[in-house]
């Protein structure tokens, strides 16, 4: 384990959005709340880039560790740190939240005259909690951050969501996630007590990783964690909250919900390495869930008439691909999975941001209401196409290397599933291109479409960085793969060494 960092960079990363949230909640004047929110989101992004800069790519251990006793009576610590698995999620998250803040620029002021800053405060609170999920190395701390994401989401959806069903969707999401938290907590507690044999419970991840569990309890814990994370991923039978949230949440929030794959991260970080025997034994379960998700997501996306629903379901297919990559437990598979997750948070996040801009102009993202958007909004259409193609994994975009790695390893290890995944890619392409054609080409059906203005400079400014990122990584993925490799190798070695 690397020595504790001299500068609490990660704590700073967590505190910045919190401070921003507090400031924008207290400010009475909307313009200032917006500026403060954007400022602190930007600072957080900068800070997350600093973290990447400070990260030593050659070292597979946890880095930038910070540790302080929190509840010594229960041996629970404030322990944060990053490794190659988590480091890139931080800037991706920060970038996505910058976009979400801009996307909420006018939304916030219209819905609730009472608390103009509240929207941004909740958004930044969510950002702090999400970053915390990626940084936390104490399982209870992780669980706390995990649950803290629920409350801001609940309010964001039920106060600023779309349509009459939004409140139902928010409550449903909250309850489903709470119910998912139960097996998760039990899994983490089981880990804490299982690895000591009745002594002091162990909650810190670095220690847990080197103390193997008895084989029998590994299965139980792996399944509990799979269930807990699976609700968030979402795995296919547990995905029922997704469509209603995708339709009910404000588009920028959907970008966060769909773009940030906390569930998959949890599987990579906790479930698989902490119960390695069970995970290796149950690889067919992961691969099966993955394949089902790829096919189901593809078909469901194909039938959806709303662009947001379409993107939400294709995210289901993407995360299925990630699971399939994980199931092979190889370096390439893991690299591909991580790359795919990162790509998707940028591409799907970007896509949803474009949709939120569209929603604000037209008042709908339903295909039947659109048509001919290309004429009045060429730039907006172009960005949407670009993000969509990146999501499909067009060569030259960042989606390609990840998908290639996953499919190659899947064909090698689970040939049937790999073939299904190939078919799923065809489905995904069709599911994106056909609604795109209907919505953006063709004649303008409604006068509102002709009158709509194209992207504003500040919206362009938000969409450009992710686009550049997608292109850069797509054309030259080697630096990122190198950044991921040492940790990925250590991760796989720990699994293979059993």
């Amino acid at each position, binding site marked *: 384990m690397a020595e504790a960092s001299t500068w609490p960079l990660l704590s700073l990363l967590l505190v910045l959005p919190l401070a921003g949230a507090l400031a924008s909640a207290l400010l009475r004047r909307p313009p200032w709340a917006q500026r403060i929110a954007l400022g602190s989101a930007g600072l957080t992004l900068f800070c997350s880039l600093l973290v990447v800069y400070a990260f030593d790519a050659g070292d597979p251990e946890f880095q930038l560790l910070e540790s302080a006793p929190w*509840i010594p009576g229960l041996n629970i610590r404030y322990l944060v740190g990053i490794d190659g698995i988590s480091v890139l999620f931080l800037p991706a998250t920060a970038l996505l939240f910058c976009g979400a803040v801009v996307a909420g620029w006018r939304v916030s002021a219209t819905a609730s005259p009472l608390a103009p800053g509240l929207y941004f405060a909740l958004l930044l609170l969510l950002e702090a909690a999400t970053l915390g999920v990626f940084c936390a190395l104490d399982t209870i701390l992780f669980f*706390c951050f995990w649950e803290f994401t629920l*409350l801001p989401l609940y309010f964001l959806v039920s*106060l600023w969501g779309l349509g009459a069903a939004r*409140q139902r969707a928010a409550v449903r999401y909250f*309850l489903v996630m709470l*119910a998912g938290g139960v097996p998760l907590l*039990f899994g983490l507690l089981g880990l804490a007590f299982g690895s000591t044999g009745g002594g002091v419970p162990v909650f810190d991840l670095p220690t847990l990783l080197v103390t193997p569990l008895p084989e029998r309890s590994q299965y*139980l814990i792996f399944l509990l964690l799979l269930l807990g994370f699976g609700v968030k991923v979402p795995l296919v039978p547990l995905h029922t909250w997704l469509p209603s949230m995708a339709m009910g949440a404000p588009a920028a929030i959907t970008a966060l919900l769909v773009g940030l794959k906390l569930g998959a991260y949890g599987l990579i970080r906790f479930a698989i390495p902490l119960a390695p025997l069970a995970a290796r034994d149950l690889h067919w379960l992961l691969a099966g869930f993955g394949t089902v998700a790829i096919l189901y997501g593809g078909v469901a996306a194909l039938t959806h008439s709303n662009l947001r629903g379409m993107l939400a379901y294709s995210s289901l297919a993407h995360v299925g691909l990630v699971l399939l990559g994980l199931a092979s437990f190889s370096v390439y598979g893991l690299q591909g999975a991580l790359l795919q997750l990162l790509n998707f948070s940028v591409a799907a996040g970007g896509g949803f941001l474009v949709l939120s801009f569209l929603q604000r102009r037209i008042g709908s993202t339903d295909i039947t209401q659109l048509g001919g958007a290309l004429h009045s909004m060429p730039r907006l259409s172009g960005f949407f196409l670009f993000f969509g193609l990146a999501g499909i994994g067009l060569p030259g975009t960042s989606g390609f290397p990840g998908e290639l790695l996953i499919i190659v390893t899947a064909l090698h290890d689970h040939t049937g599933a790999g073939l299904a995944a190939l078919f799923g890619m065809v489905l995904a392409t069709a599911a994106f291109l056909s609604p795109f054609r209907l919505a953006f080409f063709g004649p303008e059906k409604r006068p509102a479409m002709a009158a709509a203005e194209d992207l504003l400079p500040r919206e362009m400014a938000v969409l450009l960085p992710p686009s550049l990122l997608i292109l850069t990584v797509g054309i030259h993925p080697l630096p990122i793969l190198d950044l991921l490799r040492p940790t990925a190798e250590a991760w796989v070695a720990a699994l293979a060494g059993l």
Partner: protein
Amino acid sequence: MSEIWWAAQVGYPPLATLQWLPLAGGLLLLVMREDDLALVLGRLFAVGELVVAIDLYARIDVSTGVLQFAERLDLFAYHAAADGVSMLFILLAALLGVLLSFYGMARQQISPVQLLSLLLIIESAQMTMLTTMNLLWFAGASAVQLVVVGYLLWRWASAREENLALSRFLQYQVFGWALLVAGAVVLAWSHADVIGGRWSFDLFDLLRTPQIGKYQSAAFYLLFYGLAIRTPLFPLHGWLPNSAGYGLIAVGPVLLLGVKVGIYGMARFLLPLTAEAVIIWQPYVVAFAMVGVFFAAVMAFRQANLRRLMAFAVVSHTSLIVIGLFTLHPAGLQGALLLAVNFGLAITVMLLMVGYVYRRTGTTSLDRLGGLFDRIPFITVAFLIGGLALLGMPGTPGFDAVHLVLEASIETFGALPTIATALGNVAAAGFLLWAFQRAFLAPRPRDLPAARIAPTSAMEYFVGGATLLVLLAAGFYPEPWLRLTDSATQSLAAYFPHG
């Protein structure tokens, strides 16, 4: 069993002070006129009580499970002492006393000074229950508290159905109280039988006599049901929804539910005194409690009134506390007692906030509420955080407590029933959330104009803010409370040597 004399720790008899200070205040206010001076004086007494409690907390020795600050007066069989567990409850009772003394005053239609004086008398009775080592004193103080709360229900009922609420309340409570006294008599009688003639209700004396087989189950059942009615535990909760639905909006329920003396009584008297019977009957109690978690969750779902819904949420959560208590495991005991205090505080916040809502809307029926968030955001958020604390959300003291209870429960009863219980608890919380949504976030009904909902007043900010501060501070930094109760629960768990 041993104890530390008060003079060894403090310069004044602190437990007597805790009991006499509010009683003196209450009696003084009873004879005073209804004016501002009396109000200020009453609040001063409540604050003074909190100061004494905090002073006591500063002096308590947490490293030992031995009872401390002991006071005895043999003439009246008066025997008081405290350990970490009682300290926790004492702090809560004193805090609630302060909150209620500030809460109750804004109501225009009742005589605030009289209410305040009754509050102080009840607080004094609570302190007696939390400190006494004598079962008869416990029962006596319990009777005083019930009589005064019954008077409150009768005097200031908020609706026509008051009579039903009052009679249900009295039927249940008188019956429960009689069971409690009968249990105490059985114990004292068998004690006298063994010792040879001398009766005693003192915990220390009763523990010294060898435990007697055939009376123990009887004593256990009498005491358990007596306390379970107070708690209230499924299926003995029948009085609660009625009195919560029709009685005083906030003050009455808080007095009954804020400080869970039933749970405290179980930990202090029932578990050590009838340890063998507790082990025999443990599976039945736990099975009932597990059913109770679900039953109450289902009942909560069917309520159309916010207050009745909260009452069922309480029943559901109380069952969880009892499960923790009857794991008879050190972690479970500690978790259950912390949970009891957490729930007390959480339900207090919620009841007080519902009281504030009622002042504005004149109803707590879910159909007729809505859109409150825009007008009174602070009250909304305070209510929500109270609800999240009931749920055991991380960041509230409920989280660590629940997780201790669950740990112990997995170890004692296995994973499946524990997971089922936890899910039932989530369900009950879910209905609370659903109610929150309807009352605070849903569109405002037409007969509830926005203008009628006055903005949050300074006093409301103070009461809500103080509770929230305590709740969140204890949630993010639970270490002191864990340390406070650690050795006391260890010595309680020592009665139940673990496999």
